[in-house]
């Protein structure tokens, strides 16, 4: 799966650079939206087929809410360290790490709020967060625990990194992962606007 994902990514970059026109890429954007819907429907069916999953999810209790809260707090705090390491202002730095891996939204928002350079950096770094998450999920699930595998993925744990969660953790962890992704995604626009105004 990891190799298939890497091959798809490199193939996509190559086609985007040399093969496809702008219209093709736009069309592909529409196709990928439907692919995501089909994927979520299919994941839903997997979950529904597995009847024990709901009783197991109940046994998780409040941990389902603690995980997204911890990921969000840790990501925001890491923005202060990143500011020190890169020389980017604390405000922009915290806004970038508040993206929680949602590169398209954070890139667009910060281009608007702080200019093209910070916007591009937000786009690239959150994209990298998604990519690194994608490929680190198998390792983290194996060596730490399944909950930790959700942590790098943050807001992306409901869509792009979800297939890796399905493959390398359990079905009930997939449900935790989707809930985490929904909550983190909802937090991103609020956090970016808040820190941009407050810091």
């Amino acid at each position, binding site marked *: 799966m990891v190799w298939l994902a890497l091959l798809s990514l490199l193939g996509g*970059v190559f086609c*985007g650079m040399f093969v496809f026109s702008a219209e*093709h890429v736009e069309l592909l954007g529409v196709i990928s939206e439907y692919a995501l819907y089909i994927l979520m429907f299919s994941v839903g*069916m997997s979950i529904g087929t597995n009847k024990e999953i709901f009783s197991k999810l109940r046994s998780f209790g409040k*941990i389902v809410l603690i995980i997204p809260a911890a*990921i969000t707090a840790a990501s925001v705090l890491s923005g202060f360290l*990143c500011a020190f390491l890169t020389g980017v202002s604390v405000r922009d730095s915290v806004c970038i790490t508040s993206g929680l891996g949602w590169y398209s939204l954070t890139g667009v928002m910060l281009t608007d709020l702080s200019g093209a350079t910070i916007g*591009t*950096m937000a786009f690239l770094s959150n994209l990298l967060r998604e990519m690194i998450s994608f490929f680190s999920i198998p390792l983290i699930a194996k060596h730490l625990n399944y909950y930790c595998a959700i942590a790098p993925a943050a807001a992306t744990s409901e869509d792009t990194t979800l297939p890796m969660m399905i493959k390398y953790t359990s079905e009930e962890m997939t449900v935790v992962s989707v809930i985490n992704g929904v909550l983190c995604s909802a937090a991103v626009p609020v956090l970016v606007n808040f820190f941009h105004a407050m810091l």
Partner: protein
Amino acid sequence: MTILIIMCVGVFIGIKFFSKKYAKANYILQVVCTCVLIFSMGASLGAREEFLSEISALGLDSLIFAVVPIIFSVLAVYLLTKNQKQ
């Protein structure tokens, strides 16, 4: 939100109508959709005119902005869940 509703419809169909014997086909569908999503993400990146210059100019800083939150997040979740059953 749309995603969540679609998944819930899938869960409902999974509970009511879906048989486990189609699980393999369902899994293949998931793999295909995932590859389409990643391919499309790559294509939209590659199509950006400044893609290569952006990568080389802002690459290292962007990597720091990706890796540090990942380490902090994993550490935070690990400390909170190390005694949890999974």
